[in-house]
């Protein structure tokens, strides 16, 4: 796969926002047991199993099976006690103490001004903020007020658009939660939308059925008439009709690695980071 030169250029000039999805953390290994954070279906299955038995309906299974993850989440959260949800997040995302992934390393090297992640884990932020580098990166959650300030300062910003494991009560998972979050945090979403309209977006580690990317795409104004598209790195098992409709609806161009070949995906992103570095070096930016 070849990265478009215009994408490399936009990253080199820091005019591109990198989006990190669940796939970016899927390559992280736990320092305790060597496991990785769950993917969306596994995460939802896990939550489902924590629902008290009488409420554990087959509807949920069927929704997960049909990849209707947003709806599945809606049903699950209606039935799962908040304390159990908190417990699940801690068990799945915090306690295993995950190490950074290859995509995290490459993203740091690409060194964008803004990284947006819909992941709840804090693996990437913790990796960026190692040692004295904690001065150089600021994390802004959707309910915090300092995004505009961060954007105007020299710090690199890591935007946690769906919340973070360190405040589980504010994690966004279902459609209704997302609407509530948007309602209550106008300013944040206004800034985010303006970023989407004026920057190129690169989605790494997303599958088009992931609930978080659906929330972002459906509810944000990422489409603006421009000859410059946004980009997403996806497995080549994406359904052609979906690809076509996404391309039309959101102006996203899909770059594909062989489905399931995550090493290949990692190498692609490494390769991108090296191209960006080489371009910056040759242009002294």
């Amino acid at each position, binding site marked *: 796969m070849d990265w478009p030169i215009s994408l490399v250029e936009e990253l080199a000039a820091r005019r591109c926002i990198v989006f990190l999805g669940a796939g970016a953390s899927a390559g992280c290994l736990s320092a305790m047991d060597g496991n990785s954070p769950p993917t969306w279906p596994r995460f939802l299955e896990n939550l489902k199993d924590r629902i008290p038995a009488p409420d554990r309906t087959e509807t949920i299974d069927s929704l997960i099976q049909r990849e209707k993850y947003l709806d599945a989440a809606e049903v699950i959260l209606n039935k799962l006690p908040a304390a159990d949800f908190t417990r699940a997040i801690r068990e799945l995302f915090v306690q295993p103490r995950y190490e950074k992934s290859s995509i995290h390393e490459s993203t*740091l090297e690409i060194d964008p001004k803004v990284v947006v992640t819909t992941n709840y884990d804090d693996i990437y932020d913790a990796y960026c903020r190692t040692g*004295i*580098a904690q001065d150089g990166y600021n994390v802004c959650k959707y309910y915090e007020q300092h995004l505009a300030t961060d954007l105007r300062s020299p710090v690199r910003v890591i935007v946690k658009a769906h919340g973070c494991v360190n405040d589980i009560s504010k994690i966004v998972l279902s459609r209704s939660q997302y609407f509530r979050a948007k309602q209550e945090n106008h300013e944040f979403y206004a800034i985010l939308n303006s970023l989407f309209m004026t920057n190129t977006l690169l989605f790494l580690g997303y599958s088009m059925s992931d609930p978080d990317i659906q929330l972002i795409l459906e509810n944000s104004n990422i489409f603006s008439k421009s000859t410059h598209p946004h980009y997403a790195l996806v497995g080549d098992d994406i359904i052609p009709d979906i690809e076509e409709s996404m391309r039309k609806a959101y102006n996203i161009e899909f770059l594909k690695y062989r489905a399931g070949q995550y090493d290949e995906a990692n190498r692609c992103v*490494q390769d991108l980071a*090296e191209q960006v570095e080489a371009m910056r070096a040759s242009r002294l930016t």
Partner: protein
Amino acid sequence: MISIAMFNNKGGVGKTTLTCNLAAFSASVKRQRVLVVDCDPQCNASQLIMGEEFATDFYWNSDHKTSITTIRDILRPIEDGDSEISKEINPILSSKNRFEVDLLPGHPGFSIVEDRLGAAWHDLLGGDIGGIRKNNWNTEFCANVEEYYDIVFFDLGPSLGSINRSVLIGCDYFITPMGADIFSILGVRNIASWVEHWADLYENSIGLSQQRNPGRLDNYNIKERPSVLNGYLGYTMQQYITKSKQGVRRPTKAYEQIINSVPSIIEESMGPFFGENTSTESAKLGDIPHLYSLIPLAQSVATPILDLKSSDGLVGAQYKQREDYEEIIKKIAKNLYANLGESA
């Protein structure tokens, strides 16, 4: 005390950056007493260590007298026709800069002494004691600072001239930092034949002088044989910016050939000068990656790369690059001290 000349026939190979950062490493990590002597009339090392503001004040508004002596002041007597150097040595102290090294600053006018030393070389060839003494100014200088320092780094300009020859005569060791281009590698060949040529003449001249005036040279700090003839400590390579595809770095074919031929070129040209702990393998002190924006930042705040902080303006991935540089300089220092016969 050991003295090391940092030298390549090609400029712009990251020599000054390496010299100053290595010196800072010796001072801060090895806890050695370090002196950097800027023998390059371009004064890059002085500018890097002291910063632009100091440099402007020191060199431009130089009418107000300071007690600091530059390399030109040290050689002023020779410039004026004597065979001695000044014994008044007042470097800029380590407490006054972030590199934590003493610095004997360079001087743009230092190039004037090139002619004097050139003429002195001809006198030396005739066995003249004055000529021999002048060409041993650095032997004398090293003897004068011997008790104050553990290690002295000499930053040299890229010429194969009489100044650099005389610096090398006085030094124990030398290193050739190299860039990722054919000219700095070809430069190493030039250095080898140049050193061989003058060292041969030098030894003959010393012999001639001793024959004519037995015992007279014993009154002075004179090298009978330049130590650098067995004092090559190795080289560093600046990495080339590669285009890569699928994670595999792909240097251009021509460059790849050059890279692969470096060890054999080094062995062939520098092999005769290897120190007793240096081998073809150990002569490669390390690779220096492209440091992108870190170098200009370090220059603008006159700071060793390892000491760069948020308040100096580090942003984003520069934090990680600084951390990577720490590993690189550690490795180079480890190899360097191993070639010096010391454990790192």
